């Protein structure tokens, strides 16, 4: 137990430390979009740690600017997904019947599409832009939460304490919001962290394909796409942003896994 806890603390510290340059990137790295035609395609050096791109922009600054955008977007997408998933999942799970059957049908339809292709189609139909990007990712990702919350609610609603609540005359709305949802927070939090990493990757993937954020905004997928053209002359244009993306995605996944372990009900010594 002790080691588990220490590991979680260590991972959290690393995660938070890595978040600092991303969150404050507009202060630390304000020159991401500054062009310098005298400094084009420079290899990493002490002046430009990650080198510069074909327009002389500093790749370090742009990587972190881009990551901040992706993380911010991923966070908002996940929050929207959780709200949507909590409402739909808990109502479907709690009331069951026709509502539940309709929900399960929708869930199966959404899940049967490969998520990247589904969001590509949506963006292709609705046009590019940050709003459509958010919409497209919410549409494919909200079922993750709805599904989890529904299954939790189904087990919880049969529990003795929910029956007890009914016995003291609590209304359904009250039981759902005050008694069931707080119990769902535990399993949702780790999934939330894992999904943020996943969404950051999805945003970059769409950006790379030209369906996400549009230039000249700094975004990792776009930067990698730009770099592909110069791969033989300036490999750092692909390598550096990609390394940053992989690093953050891995750390977020490890953090999510640790959290999931931590919230695992089979864990001993539960202290709230």
């Amino acid at each position, binding site marked *: 137990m002790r080691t588990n806890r220490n590991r979680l603390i260590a991972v959290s510290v690393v995660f938070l430390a890595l978040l600092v340059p991303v969150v404050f990137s507009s202060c630390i790295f304000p020159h991401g979009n500054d062009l310098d035609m005298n400094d084009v395609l420079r290899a990493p050096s002490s002046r430009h740690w990650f080198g510069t791109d074909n327009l002389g922009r500093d790749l370090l600054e742009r990587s972190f600017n881009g990551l901040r955008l992706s993380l911010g977007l991923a966070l908002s997408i996940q929050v929207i997904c959780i709200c949507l998933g909590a409402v739909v999942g808990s109502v479907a799970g709690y009331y069951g019947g026709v509502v539940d059957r309709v929900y399960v049908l929708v869930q199966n339809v959404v899940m049967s599409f490969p998520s990247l292709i589904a969001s590509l189609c949506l963006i292709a139909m609705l046009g590019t832009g940050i709003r459509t990007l958010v919409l497209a990712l919410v549409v494919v990702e909200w079922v993750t939460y709805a599904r989890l919350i529904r299954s939790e609610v189904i087990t919880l609603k049969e529990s*003795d304490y929910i029956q007890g609540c009914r016995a003291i005359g609590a209304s359904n709305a009250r039981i759902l919001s005050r008694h069931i949802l707080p119990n769902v927070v535990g399993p949702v939090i780790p999934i939330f962290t894992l999904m943020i990493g996943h969404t950051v990757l999805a945003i970059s993937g769409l950006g790379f394909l030209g369906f996400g954020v549009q230039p000249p905004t700094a975004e990792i997928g776009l930067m990698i796409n730009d770099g592909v053209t110069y791969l033989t002359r300036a490999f750092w244009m692909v390598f550096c942003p990609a390394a940053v993306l992989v690093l953050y995605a891995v750390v977020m996944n490890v953090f999510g896994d640790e959290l999931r372990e931590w919230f695992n009900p089979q864990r001993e010594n539960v202290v709230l």
Partner: protein
Amino acid sequence: MARGVEPVLDLVDLNVHFESRDGKVNAVCHANLTIGKGQVLGLIGETGCGKSVLGQSVLRLLPASARMSGRILFQGTDILALPQSEVRKIRGQLIAFICQNPAEALNPVLRNGTQIMESVKINRKLPRRERRDACLDLLRSLRFTDPEFCMRSYPLQLSGGMKQRVLAAMGMSGRPSLLIADEPTKGLDALVRGHVIATLERFMEATSSSALVITHDLRFASRICDSIAVMYAGEIVERGPFDEVFGHPRHPYLQALIDSQPDRGLHVLKGSTCSLIDLPPHCRFYDRCPKAVQGCREAHPETVFVNSDHEVRCLRIA
């Protein structure tokens, strides 16, 4: 129940069954029960005989797969005929229910205080500030030495007996006129059991409420119950005033139950209860009955009054 006492709860021909994949599970069949004002009725019987289902059906707390018929008259109104919204008003305020399993009956992620306060909030119209004091009073009356701590802590920080008393506090918060307690002494040691019994008694005295106590603790029943009903395989096989029923047990099942008590020599009754899915057309106790006669195989016994308020479901009595 003594004559002339106004009934609080009157079950008339109550049937409860569940639709399951294997067939119809007849959990309660043709149950008739009456609880008078201020009286305590003990419902006893072995595990799986339908006691808890009967208790839960009074508040319509059963899962959606349950089908009920008959009448549940509470102070003259038929609970089975009421819409859900009306049943909710009865729950907690007029009829309180204390769950069977104290370890599972409190929400693990909410503080005890939050849960008791919620019950007080729903069931008693009190200004916000007085709610807390009302909770503390309740806990104090249930012998909590440190009610403040109890309010602050989470269920996992309490012992089984303390949880049981927190549940009792929640049940009592609405000052109900009928209390349904599903095995309130299960899993408690002798000392705490004594407290719980005293609490229940004090509570009923203070509110002059009635109670339906579901238990298989005969000694507990003897301390608290005015009348008793014995269930076997979904049927009430014997009921009447406590002293009368236990003084002169007539149904062979009750006789066997009494003989199986530790202080009566732990005589084990052979066999097991018939399945509630395919019930025999004859007497349900026939296979295990030490006193069965040929006639017991031929007809299903109806209830017979052996005297004015002692009713038995056995062919040999008739």
